[in-house]
């Protein structure tokens, strides 16, 4: 199964969530140096939008990705959902999580400055300030996703086919 965390840029919130999920980051400690060591973190510019970035494998063997969908995220999520439906890619193959639903305006502003304006330093600082506030919620989201993915794998492993329409995987 592939687990894809989405956010505006793909190099901020979703990258951190994916790193938490795959164990590249620990949810117990939050440090700038740990974030800065993640590949692509806070990379300026829109080049990486639309590219699923492989972050690592979870302990259950799921491939974890980070994806930037730009500032029209809801539309792009619908386009992605539609694509998966048309290509008949089932829920047992992919699980998409919107990581931005747990972050605050400071993180959003930081992402905007880095991604759209290319201001890496002020963008990074704002993002950091916002992330410290929303860190527990982000860690909770990752824990919930891990559990849901585990349940999905177990239920599909027993042969229960999850109907595609209405993809509940979109949180």
């Amino acid at each position, binding site marked *: 199964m*592939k687990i894809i965390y989405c956010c505006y840029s793909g190099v901020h919130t979703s990258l951190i969530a994916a790193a938490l999920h795959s164990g590249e980051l620990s949810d117990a400690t939050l440090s700038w140096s740990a974030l800065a060591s993640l590949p692509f973190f806070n990379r300026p510019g829109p080049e990486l939008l639309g590219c699923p970035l492989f972050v690592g494998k979870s302990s259950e063997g799921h491939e974890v990705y980070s994806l930037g*969908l*730009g500032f029209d995220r809801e*539309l792009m999520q*619908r*386009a*992605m959902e*539609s*694509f998966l439906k048309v*290509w008949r890619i089932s829920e047992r193959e992919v699980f998409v999580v919107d990581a931005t639903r747990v972050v605050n305006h400071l993180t959003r502003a930081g992402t905007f400055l880095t991604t759209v304006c290319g201001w890496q330093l002020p963008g990074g600082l704002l993002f950091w300030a916002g992330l410290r506030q929303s860190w527990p919620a982000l860690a909770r989201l990752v824990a919930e996703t891990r559990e849901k993915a585990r349940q999905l794998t177990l239920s599909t492993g027993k042969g229960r086919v999850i109907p595609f329409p209405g993809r509940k995987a979109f949180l």
Partner: protein
Amino acid sequence: MKIIYHCYGGAHSSVVAAALHLGQLPPDRMPGPEELVQLPFFDRQRGPEHGYLRLVGIDAGGNEVYIIGRRNNGRLLEKLYYHLLDLFSLPREELYLANMMPCVNWYMVVGGFLSRRLGLTWPGRTIVARGAARAYFSIATRVERIKVELITGRKREEKGGSRR
């Protein structure tokens, strides 16, 4: 193969292009505004429906023809779709994305805005239908070029296959 015609709202240029592709509109004669308005998806989609792929039909070659409204995210959509194909190990040749925005004129922009955004259906639809009629041969030429490209591409593949 899946062919996706995309434009800002998925309501005008991509609908005409898909209809031309499927032979629902004649490529050599300009249809009247009433003929365009009768097309199933013409001037129908609104904001919340943007982003959904709509199957318009299957062409003579067995290709599925879709339309999608993607607002100003054309390049991002193309990038995302090709990366998703790679991610799920699906062949890139199975997807053709055609951006129809270069064929759109100001009549279509203004008419589409009035009809779809402001809800002024009657004046907006009248203007957009006139605009679509004006852009008709430009859309038809592009669609014909795509169809030729698809046929030559397939022939090239077949030749490549027979060599192997």
